[in-house]
């Protein structure tokens, strides 16, 4: 221990005595570890950190069938009543209209069973949480618990808010409690603004068609549960499966499969699947940045080891064993790593502070991530630092502890330099190769983003305003909704500059996709086969004209396509080609009730999920024959859409002052959100690539400067013998660039492979885009050339006699 403390003391002093070296090494490591800590913080927050509830490992998500179907209220109640293995809770996210004075806005609520909070086992920040007593009489418990964020952001963190009333969907709800700051709901990232009891479904989630508290036909509740003491997950699953006989088998829910219990992940499965790929991929990328940074540090340490060769030799003479010397070196690199990790954690925290501003606006969902650094992030950074410290400190340590004692002690400069040269060149090759890979990836994303901005999505992208309203949450009946939308449509159409207005259920490129199953009339499905799926939208008349989607054959939906009239549909060109092999007009599909649906039009393909995607079959049905509660109003204008956007809230307020307007934006703004993943990809890779370029250039410069310094006598002799400055520069630059070209060769091969993995994320360009490869390679050649040229020129301009005397 004493020896270790001495090593530590000596290491610390050595670093303090070499402030330039220490600064560069710590900066390199801090940059490398910083970006790693930042990405790991996100990964930890989203994938690793357990929910901040009591014994999160005992929580299980209850799902059913391959499509992860929800449960009806009666089935939930029966599952609770008929088993004692799992304490079950139910929830459903829903939009709510919150009215303050004459203003209404849409917020996100969660309707929950009385067992929700007791099952999670959490405590309130203030007041009380909802419990079984609030889940007794339908419509009889108008109470709400608000989230910490909602309390802070919308209720001014008023401590006297308990007992106050919130008007939700036009109904008064009394605030009875506030959740703790650490609790963000049972899904990471998606935080409701408030929770209301299941008994208040009719007020919070009006459904004119169904009594959701009684109907077995509406599956709307997501379930989770807590395993009772002593019960294991498989055992609980068996218990629930056994109940299927009595509770489910005769019901629709059993159609697609069985009840399953899964470990309660913190993300909804569809987001979890994306994150499971995205975050580890990002982590891999930033690990490459760290490798480049570590190569830099190793190179600096090798240079320092050469400078310290006499000290090392003396330690050997004095009886230090190799292990003792290596330990001393490792202590130094470990100390550097700890300093780098400290700087890195600080940098990581700064990066994470900036992240919320990078997230896309997401109305209807509160995206809240706890991006604080916990013990996992700190441990990760330290582990990373110590591992890299040991691994990259080892090479210099092993090199330095094999000095040619006799020559070094006699101050013969040859001692260590030749051997470290190769190692240093290997590090430079690695740096150049890894930088090239990162820069190519970054270049591809940037080019792809540039292309995306000019990609034709198949519809009008410039002069268009969109907004959505959801009258159902205000208790509108279907007939009133229809009348409301018609009035909004007519009022908007009457505005100056508006070319046309249409309604649609889903806006293309909104994220995710909506599909429906279909069957072609006269083509029976094989027994047991699932019907095919197609992308789906429900649109009003004039939609295709408003959106600028050409009708290739047949017609648009018309006023005459009403309930009672023959059911009609429009398909895209890909549907026509793939399903019918051509000529879809007049062909028929059948719906769930086996009613025929005639195809009356074929329209051009549009991008629905991502820009530049290959089109899938798509089916449009008229809104008039398939009414919905929430719709998006599409307004095409001949003027500036930004000006028109400002008029829309007033327009809706004129129709119903309590109806919230959501997602009000121009189509350009909507597409910017759609391009978020491409933009963030380009931004991140751009930052990482630039970081890699700076680190690699520093690395090349460091090696060249060091080599030139070691060869100053040789250069002096050459100059004394009549070499011109250009001769010396050419000699040194050509030697340096040889190493760089080896790195570029390896890097190009690696980048070629990596870019093919990225191909699915790119649009408009090939993964092996020659322009990107050529531009990045040229950029690296140019920076590496400068990194070689500057020290070479400096050496060549030195007075040869000074160089000779110095030696």
């Amino acid at each position, binding site marked *: 221990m*004493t*020896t270790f403390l*001495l090593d530590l003391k*000596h290491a610390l*002093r*050595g670093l303090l*005595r070499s402030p330039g070296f220490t600064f560069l090494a710590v900066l390199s490591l801090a940059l490398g570890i910083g970006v790693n800590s930042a990405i790991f913080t996100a990964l930890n927050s989203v994938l690793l950190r357990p929910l901040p509830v009591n014994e999160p490992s005992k929580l299980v998500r209850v799902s059913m069938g391959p499509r992860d179907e929800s449960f009806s209220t009666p089935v939930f109640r029966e599952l609770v009543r008929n088993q004692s293995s799992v304490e079950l809770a139910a929830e459903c996210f829903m939009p709510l209209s919150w009215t303050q004075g004459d203003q209404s806005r849409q917020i996100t609520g969660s309707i929950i069973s009385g067992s929700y909070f007791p099952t999670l086992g959490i405590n309130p920040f203030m007041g009380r949480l909802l419990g079984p007593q609030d889940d007794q009489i339908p419509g009889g418990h108008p109470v709400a618990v608000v989230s910490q964020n909602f309390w802070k952001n919308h209720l001014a963190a008023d401590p006297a808010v308990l007992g106050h009333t919130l008007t939700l969907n036009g109904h008064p709800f009394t605030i009875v409690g506030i959740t703790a700051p650490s609790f963000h709901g049972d899904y990471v990232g998606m935080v409701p603004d408030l929770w209301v009891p299941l008994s208040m479904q009719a007020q919070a989630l009006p459904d004119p068609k169904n009594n959701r508290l009684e109907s077995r036909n509406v599956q709307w509740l997501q379930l989770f549960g807590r395993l009772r003491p002593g019960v294991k997950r498989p055992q609980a699953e068996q218990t629930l499966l056994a109940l299927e006989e009595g509770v489910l088998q005769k019901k629709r829910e059993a159609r697609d499969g069985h009840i399953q219990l899964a470990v309660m992940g913190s993300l909804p499965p569809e987001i979890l699947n994306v994150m499971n790929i995205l975050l580890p991929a990002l982590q891999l990328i930033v690990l490459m940045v760290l490798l480049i940074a570590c190569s830099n540090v190793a190179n600096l340490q090798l240079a320092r080891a050469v400078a310290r060769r*006499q*000290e090392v*030799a*003396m*330690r*050997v*003479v*004095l*009886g*230090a*064993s*190799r292990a*003792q010397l290596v330990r001393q070196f490792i202590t130094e690199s470990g100390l550097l790593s700890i300093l780098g990790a400290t700087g890195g954690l600080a940098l990581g925290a700064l990066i994470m502070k900036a992240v919320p501003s990078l997230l896309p606006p997401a109305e209807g969902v509160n995206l809240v991530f706890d991006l604080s650094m916990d013990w996992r992030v700190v441990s990760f950074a330290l582990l990373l630092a110590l591992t890299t410290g040991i691994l990259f400190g080892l090479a210099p340590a092993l090199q330095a502890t094999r000095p040619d*004692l*006799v020559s070094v*002690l*006699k*101050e013969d400069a040859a001692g260590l330099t030749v051997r470290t040269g190769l190692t240093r060149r290997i590090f430079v090759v690695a740096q150049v190769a890894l930088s090239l890979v990162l820069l190519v990836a970054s270049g591809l994303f940037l080019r792809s983003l540039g292309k995306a901005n000019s990609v034709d999505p198949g519809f009008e992208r410039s002069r268009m305003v969109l907004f959505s309203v959801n009258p159902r949450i205000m208790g509108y009946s279907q007939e009133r909704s229809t009348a409301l939308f018609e009035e909004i449509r007519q009022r908007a159409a009457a505005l100056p500059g508006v070319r046309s207005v249409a309604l649609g259920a889903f806006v293309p490129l909104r994220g995710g996709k909506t599909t429906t199953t279909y069957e072609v009339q006269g083509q029976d499905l094989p027994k047991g086969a699932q019907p095919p799926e197609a992308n789906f939208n429900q649109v009003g008349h004039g939609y295709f004209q408003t959106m600028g989607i050409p009708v290739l054959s047949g017609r648009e939906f018309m006023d005459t396509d009403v309930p009672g009239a023959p059911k009609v549909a429009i398909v895209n060109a890909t549907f026509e080609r793939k399903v019918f092999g051509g000529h879809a007009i007049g062909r028929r599909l059948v719906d769930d009730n086996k009613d025929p649906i005639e195809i009356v039009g074929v329209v051009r393909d549009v991008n629905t999920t991502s820009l530049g995607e290959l089109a899938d079959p798509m089916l449009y049905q008229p809104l008039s024959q398939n009414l919905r509660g929430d719709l998006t109003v599409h307004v095409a204008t001949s003027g500036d859409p930004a000006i028109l956007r400002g008029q829309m809230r007033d327009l809706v307020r004129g129709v119903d002052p309590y109806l919230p307007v959501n997602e009000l934006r121009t189509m350009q703004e909507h597409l910017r959100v759609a391009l978020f993943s491409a933009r963030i990809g380009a931004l991140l890779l751009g930052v990482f690539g630039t970081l890699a370029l700076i680190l690699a250039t520093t690395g090349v410069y460091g090696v060249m400067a060091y080599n030139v310094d070691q060869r100053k006598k040789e250069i002096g002799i050459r100059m004394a013998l009549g070499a011109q400055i250009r001769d010396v520069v050419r000699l040194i630059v050509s030697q340096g660039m040889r190493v760089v070209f080896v790195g570029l060769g390896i890097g190009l091969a690696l980048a070629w492979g990596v870019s093919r993995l990225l191909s699915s994320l790119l649009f408009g360009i090939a993964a092996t885009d020659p322009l990107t490869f050529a531009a990045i390679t040229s950029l690296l050649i140019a920076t590496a050339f400068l990194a070689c040229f500057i020290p070479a020129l400096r050496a060549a301009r030195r007075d040869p006699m000074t160089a000779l005397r110095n030696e």
Partner: protein
Amino acid sequence: MAKSLINLTGIKKVFTTEEVETHALSDIHLDIKEGEYVSIEGPSGCGKSTLLAILGLLDAPSGGSYELNGKPVAQLTLSDRARIRNREIGFIFQSFNLIGDLTVFENVELPLVYRGMPSGERRTRVMEALEEVGMGHRAKHLPSQLSGGQQQRVAVARAVGGRPSILLADEPTGNLDSTNGEAVMDLLKELHRRGSTICMVTHDPRFANYAERNIHLFDGRVIEEGNSSRRSA
């Protein structure tokens, strides 16, 4: 009769490069007894330092046998060599070779740290050694804050602090002016008087005469061996 501390028989050292074979030492026979003060003299390139490196286990001979304290060293591992250097041999170099980042105290302490000596005992030993060379008052200084003569005294303290069997000094006055050179030689003489065995390489006959026995090397061979003409300063 004093015990033999170092015994070399037929030692050879050949440096081989791609085209040239250089015989640095040829057929060296040398016996150094406990308490002796031996100087090795000769012109530049005669093999003095090579011989000293072999004696100090810093280099291995190409042929012949070497016994230290009666034990052959040829088969020793690198780790054994390090241990023996640490315990049995004290080195003094022309260029002092103090470690710039360490204080005077820490420089002298270093071989004792490698030996695994407890810190209390180390402190006593270091201060004794520094007092012995008259540098106790400079214990907290860095080498850069000392004159050349003072640095060499510290190097001597470092060499004797571990109470080695033999002190090997390679041109200990080579980087010093004549006054400081004399002072260091007096210090070595005093150490010898107190019982230390010393083997010193020098090309300066004045300093060679401080030793009680002189060995002359030329072209890697011992050409003359005899008692010193000067017994006292």
